[in-house]
C-alpha cells in the first residue's frame, strides 16, 4: 500500500529553519514568563501593565509568525524548484 519515496523537496539549508525556530521560541516562551509582567505599574491609559503587556504581545507574535512564514516560504520554494527542475534522486530531508 505504500508509495515510492519520490522526493517532494530538495535538501534543506539550515539557516532559515534555525532563524524561524528562534523567532517562534521567542513567541512561545516570553508571553509565558509570568514574573516579568505580573505587576500593576506602569499603567497605559488606565490599564495595568499586566493587561496591556499581554495584549501587546498579540501583534508581536503575529509579526514573528509572519516573518517566519516569509523565511520558510522562501526556502521552501527554493527546495521545490531544486527537485522539480531536475528529477534527481536527492535524499529528502
Amino acid at each position, binding site marked *: 500500500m505504500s*508509495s515510492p519515496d519520490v522526493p517532494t523537496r530538495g535538501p534543506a539549508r539550515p539557516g532559515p529553519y534555525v532563524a524561524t525556530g528562534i523567532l517562534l521560541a521567542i*513567541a512561545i516562551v516570553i*508571553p509565558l514568563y509570568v514574573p516579568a509582567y505580573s505587576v500593576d505599574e506602569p499603567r497605559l*491609559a488606565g490599564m*495595568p501593565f499586566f493587561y496591556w503587556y499581554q495584549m501587546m504581545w*498579540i501583534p508581536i*507574535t503575529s509579526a514573528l509568525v509572519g516573518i517566519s*512564514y516569509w523565511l520558510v516560504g522562501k526556502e521552501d520554494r527554493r*527546495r521545490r524548484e531544486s527537485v522539480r527542475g531536475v528529477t534527481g534522486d536527492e535524499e529528502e530531508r
Partner: protein
Amino acid sequence: MSGAAVPLAAPDRPISWVPLTIVIILFVLVAVLGFVAARWRRGEGTGLHSLDEWGLGGRGFGTWVTWFLLGGDLYTAYTFVAVPAAMWATGAVSGFFAVPYTIVLYPIVFLLMSRLWSVSHRHGFVTPADFVGGRYGSRALTLAVAVTGIVATMPYIALQLVGIKAVLTVLGLGSAENVLLTDLPLIIAFVVLAAYTYTSGLRAPALIAVVKDLLIYLAVIVAVIYLPIKFGGWGPIFDSAEAKLAAVNPATGKPTGVFIPGANSYSAYWTLALGSALALFMYPHSITGVLATKSRNTIRKNAAVLPLYSLMLGFLALLGYVAIFAGTNPVDLNGAVNPQLVVPQLFLDQFPAWFAGIALAAIAIGALVPAAIMSIAAANLFTRNIYRDLIKPDATPRQEAKVSKIASLVVKFGALIFVIAMDQSAAINMQLLGGIWILQTFPTIVAGLYTRWFHRWALFGGWIAGIIYGTIAAYNVVNPVTKAYFGGSIAAIPGTDIQVYIAVVAFAINLVVATGLSLLFHAMKLPGGNDITRSSDYGADENDPKVAQIEREHPLAEPGAPTF
C-alpha cells in the same frame, strides 16, 4: 436600557422585543445562507457525495475563507460567554489566561499543522485518527485517538448550546416554571442548524462564519471604544475590578479572585495557557478546519493573521471588568447569579436595543458555527475510524458521506439532550475533562509527524496513563464553595504544592510512560506496525501528486519500510 420591554405572563424576565426581533432576523438570514452554501464552490458535478466534499468543503478553502472559518471555529460562543464571565467572577487566572493561550497557540500551529496537512493531502486522510492509522498501523491507537476526539467534542458542542441559552435567557425567552417553553427556542435553533449542516456540510459554517465574525468584530469594537468613554476611561474600570476581586469571599475566607497573579499562581497561569494551546489543535474540529484548506501554506499564513481574533478576545475578556464597574447583575431564571449571563446582560443594559440585538445575535450565531464544525468533525471520526475501520472496510465515498451526515445529526441531538436533560455543570465538567483527555492524543499525533521512534503500544500506554491520572486529579478538585467534585482544572503536582493545569501534568506522565515503554518494547523487538507514509509526504504541497495517483503510475512500487 432596552427599548420596549413587555412583561411576560410568567414573572421571570420581561421579553426584550427589539433585540429579540433582530436576533430572529439575523438567525433566519444565516439559516438561508447555510442552505445556499450547498451550491457554493460545488465540485464538478459530483455534489456532496464524499467526505472530501461534505466533510471538508472540497478541500479547497483559501486564506480568507480559512481565516473566517477557523476564527469562527476556535473562538466559540462559549468562549465569548465564559471568558468574560470568569473575569467577572474570579479575575485574571481563570479568565485572562485566554490571552497568552491564544498567543502561544499560533507558533505551535505554524510548526505542526502544515506537516499534518501535507501527509493528509497525500494520503486523503480526513481525520487525525486516519493519520495515526496510516502512520502506526495500529487499530487500537487509531481507535483511542478517534474515541478521545469524539468524547472530547461532545460536551464542547453542548457548551455552544449553553452560549445560545445565555443569550435567550437575557432576552427574556424562558421561564423558571415552564421547562418546555424555556428550551423550545433552543430546540428550534438546533433543528435548523442540524438541517443545513446535513445538507451543506462544512460549506455551511464556512459561509456563516463570515457573517458571524463581522458581527462579533462590530460588537466588540463598538463596546470597547464606547463603554470606557462612557465610564470615564479604563482606570476606574480596573480599579473597581481590583476592589471586587480583593474582597474576601465569606464562604472561603479568601479573596474573591485574582486581579494580578501573585507568585503562587504563576505556574497555574502559564500552564493553563500552554496546556490549552497544545490541546486546541488536537481537537477534531480544529484539524477539520486545517484539512479543509487548499494548500500547505494556507494554515501557516493564517497563523500570522488569526491573532487578530485573540486581540478581540482580550478586549472581550476585559468587558467582564467593565461589567463589574457597570454593576451588571446577571440573574438567571431561578433567581441565582449566573456569571455566564454577564456579557449578554451588559450589552442589553448599556446599548440601544437594536445594537444589543446585533451583539446578542453575534453571540448566538457564534455558537452555530463551531457547533456545526464540531459535529462534522466528530461524524467524520465516527465514519472513518469506527464505521469504515471496524464495520465496513470497503465503504464507498458515497456511503461514507451518507453515514457521516447521519452521524452529525446523532451527535447534535446527543448534545441537545445533554444540555436539556442534565445540569449545565455536567457539560462544563465534561468539557474540562475533554480538554485534559484531548491533550493525551498529542504525543501520538505530533510525535508521529516527525518520528516513528515511539512504539505504537508505548503511545497507547502513555495515553491510558495520562487519561487515568487526569481524570482522577480532576475529580479530586473540590469546589471550595459548593463542595462539588470536578471543581476546577488546577491541582498541585503530586508530591509538591505547585499548582498547575492538570492536563499538563497528565501530559508529562503520558510522555514519560510512552518513552519508557518505547525503550522496553524496542528492546523486546515487539513489531512496530506498518507505516504507509514516506518522509517525502510530510513536505508535499498542493502541486505534488496524491498517493493514489503515484500508485497508478508506479504499480510495481515495493512496500515501504518505516522512514526513520
